[in-house]
């Protein structure tokens, strides 16, 4: 069909695009009216499920006695893996995630059985009453040990460019380093929850808090041994996801569905917080090392990087996550001749999973650690070294995976931020402060971010939408993305309203449902607006074409000249209100419903060669952090943060700034106070918010300046905006580097401190002690 209508590109004065519209649910959220899964009125006869978990990390079940569980108050049903009617493996990509343990115990907290009772509390009480005997083996808990024992969940992957060994050997200086990077608990405020409602015959309706309703649909069908068309998944909103509900939500939906099917009653499964924290995957801890060759000015000549990702017991998404760490080991810097290997290490921990950044942050930390090492070696300010090593325009412009870095915004973006944050002026002031203060020291750092946008699994870069226009001119848009607070639905509504020139209140974004848009990709990889926005726009274009045709017939004009704006449709001197045209079209039997589809162009990657263009484009940003540390205790305070970030042409500045600020603080938590700890038995001991500390309100820096870099995306993304979900998280590396800077001041900036992430006060104190050798006594 001939393309009649071009998408609206211009930001007209009355267009909602580029405006700071409040989140579409904001008024309901503040009034307690926004409904989450646990708030949905329960159907009659709803029962409640809970899981019983393993208290060993490695072994085999010798005996599982569930007599007392069955006998516990209120218990209706108890299931083990033997009671699963269909598939028992609910792994997302590669096998290895049994829905309930099948003899083999692979991590502490693994679900052994599930129990159904008349109340949540009774189910949870019953779940503690099993008698379990396990033949135990010593758990493997660190990726280095896995690497030594060749325990991997997937084969290693390599990326090579040139001859790294020769480049390093020929370089003026050779540097080596190692960095331990901790994982991160998602701590979405709404824990994992699903409600399964049995429908006619074997059909099943699922309400779940999931970033991936299509996968939940598939897995529920598989465990029930029915076809996908018998399962509908509905997902209105999540109380936070951050990657933690991409694959990790399915198990609870599947268990609820099995109970619902067996007992023919609605079943809710909501995990208690400490159970949630023990049984769901986290950001991967990494153990990375590098060897680096530099010239006298600190310019990288070559490097060899070894990445050991702690994947936990199974593959889950770890292949793509360790890949993404490798894709981002350069951050914004040209690595020259390099050899990068990424190992997928298997440990006896919960299977680590997606978390905002998806391995990218742990990869970029290598780059920043290398830069700091270089700066102390050559005795220059780390910012100078950073700028010197940035990708350049005509040479030194190809990544380790062969992608050209085009339209690189970092040099200009950094220059601007350097100026607006008064970096060099403050550097002087900090030097003075540090000279005058013996106990308290200040540090400053500017770090960039270059983050590749697209799923690296090419097939996931597709999206669908379904648009219905009703006869009063209002419309419902449904798309494959899920709303977890990031403002996706708000942006989609803005796009649809903009396409038709109607008020945003006339557009309702409905819950994500597998019976409206099928075979969707997870809302992940920052791609939500990029792909679903384009799909929604394509649905709009289809209906606009029909309406334009109809109107042009009514007035005998050229459909190519029809314009939709200000609640009206205009063709030359003819004008009709949008509502009236919709009604005329309806009476003339014009379809007012359409799907839309989109697939991201240009992308490809060959895993055999480790070369390609896996990313449609890069999103850029940079931040400057200033910190104060206490050398007696290792405590610190982030005093000021300045951020300049690239979101292309912003669809909604308030939402984009919200993502930047929130991502930054979440990243800061990852690198500072969020300390995942397992004991020697493999039990997670930081398993509740009393022992695992995400940033609180007082951690937000008193001075927190965030600006958007004003430049449209050079690629043809939705209205030339850029993805914003993940990239800002990595801006927080400036906090880690600023703490290191403050510690390094104790050596007159001669020593690069060995600071593990997270930089807890204890780790900071250890790094301080590593830098000063003259004991703990300070002259005042």
């Amino acid at each position, binding site marked *: 069909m001939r393309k009649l209508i071009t998408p609206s590109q211009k930001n007209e004065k009355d267009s909602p695009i580029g405006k700071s519209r409040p989140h579409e649910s*904001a008024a309901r959220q503040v009034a307690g009216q926004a409904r989450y899964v646990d708030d949905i009125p329960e159907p009659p006869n709803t029962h409640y499920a809970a899981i019983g978990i393993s208290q060993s990390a490695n072994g085999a079940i010798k005996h599982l006695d569930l007599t007392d569980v069955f006998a516990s108050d209120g218990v209706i049903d108890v299931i083990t893996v033997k009671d699963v009617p269909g598939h028992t493996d609910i792994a997302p990509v590669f096998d290895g995630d049994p829905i309930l343990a099948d003899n083999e115990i692979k991590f502490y907290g693994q679900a052994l059985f599930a129990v159904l009772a008349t109340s949540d509390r009774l189910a949870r009480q019953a779940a503690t009453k099993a008698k379990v005997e396990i033949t135990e083996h010593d758990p493997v808990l660190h990726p280095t040990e896995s690497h030594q024992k060749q325990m991997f969940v997937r084969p290693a992957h390599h990326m090579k460019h040139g001859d790294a060994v020769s480049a390093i050997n020929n370089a003026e200086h050779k540097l080596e380093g190692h960095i331990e990077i901790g994982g991160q608990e998602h701590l979405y405020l709404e824990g994992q929850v699903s409600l399964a409602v049995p429908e006619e015959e074997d059909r099943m309706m699922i309400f779940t808090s999931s970033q991936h309703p299509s996968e939940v649909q598939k897995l529920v069908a598989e465990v029930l041994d029915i076809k996908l068309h018998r399962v509908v998944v509905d997902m209105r909103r999540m109380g936070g996801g951050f990657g933690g509900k991409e694959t990790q939500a399915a198990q609870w939906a599947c268990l609820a569905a099995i109970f619902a099917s067996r007992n023919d009653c609605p079943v809710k499964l909501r995990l208690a917080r400490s159970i949630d924290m023990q049984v769901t995957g986290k950001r991967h801890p990494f153990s990375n090392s590098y060897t680096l060759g530099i010239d006298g000015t600190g310019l990288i000549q070559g490097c060899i990087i070894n990445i050991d990702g702690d994947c936990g017991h199974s593959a889950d998404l770890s292949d793509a996550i360790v890949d993404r760490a490798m894709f981002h080991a350069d951050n914004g810097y040209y690595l020259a001749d390099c050899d990068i290997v990424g190992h997928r290490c298997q440990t006896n921990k919960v299977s680590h999973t997606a978390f905002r950044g998806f391995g990218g942050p742990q990869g970029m930390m290598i780059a920043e650690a290398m830069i700091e090492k270089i700066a102390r070696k050559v005795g220059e300010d780390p910012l100078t070294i950073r700028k010197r090593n940035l990708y350049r325009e005509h040479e030194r412009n190809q990544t380790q995976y062969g992608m050209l870095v085009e339209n690189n915004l970092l040099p200009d973006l950094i220059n601007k931020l350097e100026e607006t944050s008064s970096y060099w002026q403050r550097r002087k002031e900090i030097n003075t402060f540090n000279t005058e203060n013996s106990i308290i020291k200040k540090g400053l750092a500017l770090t960039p971010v270059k983050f590749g946008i697209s799923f690296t699994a090419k097939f996931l870069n597709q999206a669908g939408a379904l648009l219905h226009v009703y006869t009063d001119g209002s419309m419902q848009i449904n798309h494959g993305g899920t709303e977890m607070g990031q403002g996706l639905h708000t942006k989609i509504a803005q796009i649809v309203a903009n396409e038709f020139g109607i008020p945003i209140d006339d557009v309702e974004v409905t819950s994500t449902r597998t019976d409206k848009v099928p075979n969707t990709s997870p809302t992940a990889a920052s791609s939500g607006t990029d792909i679903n926005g384009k799909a929604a726009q394509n649905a709009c274009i289809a209906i606009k074409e029909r309406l334009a045709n109809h109107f042009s017939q009514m007035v005998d004009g050229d459909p190519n000249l029809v314009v939709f704006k200000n609640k009206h449709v205009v063709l030359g001197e003819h004008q009709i209100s949008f509502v009236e045209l919709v009604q005329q079209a309806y009476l003339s039997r014009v379809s007012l419903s359409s799907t839309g589809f989109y697939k991201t162009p240009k992308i490809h990657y060959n895993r055999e060669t480790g070369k390609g263009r896996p990313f449609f484009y890069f999103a850029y940003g940079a931040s400057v952090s200033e910190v104060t540390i206490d050398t007696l205790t290792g405590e610190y305070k982030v005093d000021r943060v300045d951020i300049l970030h690239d979101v292309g042409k912003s669809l909604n500045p308030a939402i984009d700034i919200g993502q930047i600020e929130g991502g930054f603080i979440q990243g800061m938590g990852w690198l500072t106070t969020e300390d995942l700890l397992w004991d020697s038995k493999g039990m997670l001991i930081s398993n509740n918010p009393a022992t695992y500390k995400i940033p609180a309100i007082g951690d937000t820096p008193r001075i927190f300046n965030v600006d958007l870099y004003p430049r449209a995306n050079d690629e043809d993304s939705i209205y030339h905006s850029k993805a914003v979900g993940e990239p800002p998280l990595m801006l927080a590396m400036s906090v880690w580097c600023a703490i290191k800077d403050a510690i390094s001041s104790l050596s007159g900036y001669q020593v690069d401190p060995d600071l593990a992430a997270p930089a807890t006060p204890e780790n900071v104190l250890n790094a301080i002690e590593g830098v000063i050798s003259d004991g703990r006594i300070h002259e005042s």
Partner: protein
Amino acid sequence: MIRFLLNEQIISVEEHKPDTTLLEYIRQSKSLCGTKEGCASGDCGACTVVLADINDNANGLTYKTINSCITYLSSIHGKQLITVEHLPSETELHPVQQAMVDCHGSQCGFCTPGFIMSMFSLYHQNAEVSHQNIEIALSGNLCRCTGYRPIIEAASLSCTSPTPDKFDKNSEQTISKLNLLKEEKGESNGYLQPTSRDELRLAISSNPLARLVCGSTDLALETTQLLNDLACLINLKNVTELNHIEEAENELRIGSALSFAEIESKLLKHFPDLKELLWRFASAPIRNQASLGGNIANASPIGDMPPVLLALNANILLDNGKARRVIPAKDFFIDYKTTQMQKDEWIESIHLPYLSKQSQLRAYKVSKRLEDDISAVCAVFKIELENNCVVKLSSGFGGIAATPRQADSLEQVIIGLDWTSRTTMEKGIAALSHYFSPIDDVRASAEYRHKMVINLWQRFWLETSAANPATTTRANAYA
């Protein structure tokens, strides 16, 4: 029968399990699902609601935030429970709600109702709305999405010059309704509310298995985390003898059942150096509930107030309804979660001797996060000097042994020495070096705790020794 106002409606609960939490009741019995469960342990604030009660002058209402997940339904008798759904008027959102919309303070929205309730309480506090006061008011609410900046802005915008809202306009009716409800005692099966020493003695003797409860911020964790059923509770909150604070001639006498919020102003009047420790004690909603008596009676090895009591040489007044006895704080803690208290005893009050003019007090807390975190190490020092010479020294440490401890060895070696001399400080280090045997746990390693004992001692010396008056020694927000 428990009676209270649920928003505007008078509610009478005839039968309920004494350990039913307020959150369970709100969500399950009343289907008011705006209030969320985030952790069920008082650590995230998603369940925050406001309790309104008649103020001390009986002429207005106070609005206090609490965590409904660790509050028992039975404890709200005679009060007004306000939930997020009730804030808007018929036509518009409450100013704190509108400000959150306008400032883009909600993203996923799950923490939002809790923040709204904390802001609503701040709105009614008639306090100066500084950045610090906002942080204090919202310290018990975690947000994982926004990074807090827009929330701080919304609080500042809406609470700086509050105009009377519908709660102010209805306050007279609310007060008369509450007065009416308070005429009843509010007891029910398995839940006792004694009002005097004698009643308390009787309640304990006739219910030997009952648990004493005051703020419930610790006990309720047995309900929500350990899933224990508690069949009988005795609430101490209405016992007259446990609920007054007295500025006696030589000491401050604090009723054991008073909440930290209730004792804050008098405590800080006499011990201003405790300000940071008090503000970092859990979070505002916890301080609105938790009592000093509870903090001592549960004998946690880390509780932040026991080290203060040790350093101040405080006394603890125990009672069993027949005889009272005074135990010095240093003798009170016997072993992990074990104290001198007999089975039939309770704490009536805690007596803190005032500081002499020559005394200096410092309380240090080291934790991973500044706010609402349990300390890795808490160290409190009190020193009395005469012409730079140490006359008295006392200390209290938390997080370094199975109980809160004093460092007797330190006290012995320092007395009589010149406080301005570095040698004195170094002698203290020697005395402290292997004095305690802390353990590795989720908060810190034993090694780090060892270092903190020494380094905090060093910080104390730097801050109080006349030779080093101008040294900046702390990086944190309240310094």
